[in-house]
């Protein structure tokens, strides 16, 4: 089961890196994309833990719905288009 452990550490490291990118990103939309990466990788951890259904639901709900709602919400708020014009 050394391979499983190896994958776990890789995944865990990636999750931490992505989570670091979430909090340290300059752009809020980048943060959300990284957040959805965290969710996807967490689904990988679930698969390693032999909880496939949970992994699928994780992708379906968190990546497919919650991240999209967050991005949607961000885009509905006022922001500045690159290049200066207010949108």
């Amino acid at each position: 089961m050394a391979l499983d452990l190896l994958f776990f550490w890789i995944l865990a490291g990636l999750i931490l890196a992505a989570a670091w990118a979430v909090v340290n990103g300059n752009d809020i939309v980048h943060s959300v994309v990284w957040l959805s990466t965290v969710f996807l990788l967490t689904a990988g951890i679930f698969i390693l833990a032999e909880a496939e259904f949970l992994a699928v639901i994780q992708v379906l709900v968190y990546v497919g719905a919650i991240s999209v709602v967050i991005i949607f919400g961000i885009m509905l708020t006022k922001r500045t288009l690159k290049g200066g014009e207010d949108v």
Partner: protein
Amino acid sequence: MAEMWISMGPQHPMTHGLWTLKVKVDGETIVDADPELGYLHRSVEKMGERRKYFMNTTLTDRLCYASSTTWTHCYALSVEELMGVEVPQRAQYIRTIMLELQRLASHLMWAGAYMPDLGHITGALYFWRDRELFLNLLELPSGSRLLYNYIRIGGVKRDLPDGFEEKTERILKLFEQRLDEYADLFENSKIFRMRTEDVGNFTASQAMNLGITGPNLRGCGTKHDLRKHDTYEIYEEIDWEIQTREAGPGYSDCFSRYMVRIDEMRESVHIIRECFKNMPSGPTMASKVPIRASGEAFRRTEDSRGEALMYLVGDGSDRPYRWKIKSPMFTTISACPHYLKGYKVADIPSIMGSIDICIGETDK
């Protein structure tokens, strides 16, 4: 998302030509609109002052690529008034036939261009397929498919070729069949109605105040047609009716404007048949057409898109001293903030398509 200005054009699928529509949207709702014209300005009026009277028919052909005969006819009428030329009876009949064929082709061009605006590419190809039939007909006497240069000052270029009547009758019959067939695909289709009904409303009084004429005004239920009210050629001799539609009492929406054009096409078919019924024989060109003129003349005709007006001043030379064109679309496009406000972004092509834009005549 706050309010923002979107610039649609000058290169945008909605514009049907070179112009810019700036819309201010709040989310998907239109708050304000600002049309911007002048991208296609070719100074036709000034060019015409440098050319002889008879040469200007090539310029008027190019005013509107979809409806060139009607514009040339308007020019020919005003020059004939300036020069005092009497057009022979047969030429008048031929002119009426050509005008109605051109109106059919123009309305079909419009209907074909309207369908992709609604996301219906098949409709475009169906209508343009039928337009080809009428282009074939127009090609027979004039020798060209788009810019005919057929109506000349004092008559028409040449007589109708042999077998023209039979061919026209065959095509008209086919066309009427196809219009009935298309009813299921377009005006009776639920989704088509969802897109066009209750969209882009304006009332008849609003339209008259804003200078909107032609089918757009007749779509409000107003019986106004220069072919009847300021009659020319032989429209008073034959039996036909002004087609009107209305979405509700005294106002129009995209669907009524669509339907009034479909009805006009059927009426044009009727007019062409009536013309063939009592067509006299004789010359097709006035015996004497002067080359110089002086004085001023002014004629208005019912173009495919509304009221076309031309004003000419001659100073005795062989070129016009001043030439002014008033196009129906200029006022209609300028009025677009009045009928765009409050609708969705997705309605912009639906509304602007339904008023039948032609930028060539607008910018001149």
